[in-house]
């Protein structure tokens, strides 16, 4: 075990019992707050026959109904733009956060007060500290800053930590590497697994040995995709830095779970843990079919209830995120917070996270099938031989007479529309008539081959290098 590094010792050294007592006290106060301020929650609580004064133990949370994305979007439609779940007057809103994704499904809107913003940043700052970063460290953020919470939180967290933060997302990969990384020699970098693979290949092509060229690098921080243990081990060897993983979601308001000093592959041959931020949210990991809590070691869906959130709090929100639940004593660091397994976070629904953006297949369907000439399509997300995340979409035209020029124009239009609506560039091409599968029951137009791609990149690039 590594020595525990703590920004907030009262949190990290507390007993499990003290944590649960704090959760109960915070939740009792928060449920009263929500009930008194939000017509949306008051109505839901009343229907369930629930009064905040009746909340005596953490298991009482199960008396409340689950909340879904659909519920939130319906509330926003009825009471635009924030929904009747908004708990503060509009002049207290300091920032608007939207779930990344598409107009095809709808974006959840979260009103953030000053305190919500500070909390989000603190959660990230605390985790950066746990990853070994300190005031004055040079931190490179490769995630694009926008209206979604992850990059915002990371930026604020680095700022609050006192790090020297460089948001380099707008620049192309060559500039990121040559202009910024080589010039400023970062101590920490925030990337997706696929992008780290791409940077690795780029280094290989340019004859750069990352371990030698980035001697100050001590933390590579990743999120958004699952990855093989072998990939993580190899990346740590090539870059000469430890990998730390986080699990974030907009609904939690900060950083839902983060790894500790043990890293993502303690001992180099098994998956590590990410500690859930149970000081600021109550997490239930449930069987999505039965709604009952899963047992340690089992997979389940994350359901969260904020313990603090002034603007747009959530109570029993079903995230659709699939994780493996591990009790707090699985990790040797001694923190009292329960964990989820590193490297295996996935989804129960069809949403795919591509280059940090949430992509809903329904939104792609709506964009493509808005063209009456198009019949069917299939999408594939993969990591190419240079380690870049790519999206190929093969499309069949309806059997109508159409010139080649007209087809080219339709594909070009659809490409631009997808970029605008979904926020991700895709490579569209024509598929021969009848070559794509048709769906009678459950439509499965997408395949995700990135995990395989990460393994392959090891062989084409860094895998050849001696450790």
């Amino acid at each position, binding site marked *: 075990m590594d020595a525990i590094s703590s*920004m907030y010792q009262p*949190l990290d050294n507390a007993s499990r019992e003290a944590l649960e*007592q704090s959760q109960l006290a915070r939740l009792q*106060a*928060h449920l009263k707050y929500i009930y008194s301020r939000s017509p949306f929650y008051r109505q839901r609580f009343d229907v369930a026959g629930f009064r905040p004064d009746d909340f005596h133990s953490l298991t009482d949370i199960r008396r409340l109904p689950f909340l879904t994305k659909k519920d939130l979007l319906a509330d926003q439609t009825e009471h635009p733009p924030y929904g009747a779940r908004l708990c503060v007057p509009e002049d207290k809103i*300091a920032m608007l956060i939207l779930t990344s994704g598409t107009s095809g499904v709808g974006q959840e809107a979260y009103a953030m*007060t*000053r305190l919500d913003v*500070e*909390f989000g940043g603190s959660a990230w700052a605390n985790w950066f500290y746990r990853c070994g970063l300190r005031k004055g460290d040079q931190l490179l953020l490769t995630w694009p800053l926008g209206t979604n919470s992850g990059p915002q939180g990371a930026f604020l967290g680095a700022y609050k930590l006192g790090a020297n933060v460089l948001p380099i997302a707008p620049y192309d990969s060559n500039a990121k590497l040559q202009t910024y990384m080589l010039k400023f020699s970062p101590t920490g970098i925030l990337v997706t697994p696929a992008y780290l693979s791409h940077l690795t290949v780029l280094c290989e092509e340019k004859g750069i040995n990352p371990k030698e060229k980035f001697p100050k690098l001590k933390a590579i921080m990743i999120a958004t995709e699952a990855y093989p243990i072998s990939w993580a081990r190899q990346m740590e060897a090539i870059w000469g830095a430890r990998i730390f993983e986080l699990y974030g979601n907009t609904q939690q308001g900060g950083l839902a779970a983060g790894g500790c000093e043990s890293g993502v592959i303690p001992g180099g041959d098994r998956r590590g843990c990410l500690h859930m931020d149970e000081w600021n949210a109550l997490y239930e990991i449930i069987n999505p079919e039965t709604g009952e809590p899963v047992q340690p070691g089992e997979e389940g869906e994350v359901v969260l209830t904020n313990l603090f959130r002034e603007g747009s709090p959530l109570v029993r929100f079903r995230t659709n995120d699939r994780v493996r639940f591990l009790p707090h004593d699985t990790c040797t660091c001694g923190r009292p917070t329960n964990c989820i397994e590193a490297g295996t976070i996935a989804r129960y629904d069809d949403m795919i996270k591509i280059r940090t953006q949430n992509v809903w297949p329904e939104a792609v369907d709506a964009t493509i099938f808005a063209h009456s000439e198009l019949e069917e399509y299939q999408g594939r997300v993969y990591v190419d031989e240079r380690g870049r995340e790519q999206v190929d979409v093969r499309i069949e035209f309806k059997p109508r007479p159409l010139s080649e020029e007209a087809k080219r124009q339709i594909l070009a239009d659809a490409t631009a529309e997808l970029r605008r609506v979904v926020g991700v560039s895709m490579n569209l091409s024509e598929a021969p008539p009848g070559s794509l599968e048709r769906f009678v029951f459950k439509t499965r137009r997408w395949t995700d081959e990135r995990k395989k791609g990460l393994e392959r990149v090891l062989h084409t690039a860094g895998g050849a290098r001696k450790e």
Partner: protein
Amino acid sequence: MTPDEIVERLRTMLAQTQELALQRHPALEGDIQIVLAILTDKLRHLDPTGSYPPPVEYE
């Protein structure tokens, strides 16, 4: 300074900042709310099992 003394000092700072914020001076508006939020957030982290200012009443 002990951890308890730090918490106590932060509480004092919060009370003083709240007083100042109530003056509604144009030169402080915006920034003073940020200071209040930072102090409240710090207290929540450093005193997780103790009492803390209730939500929304920190301004």
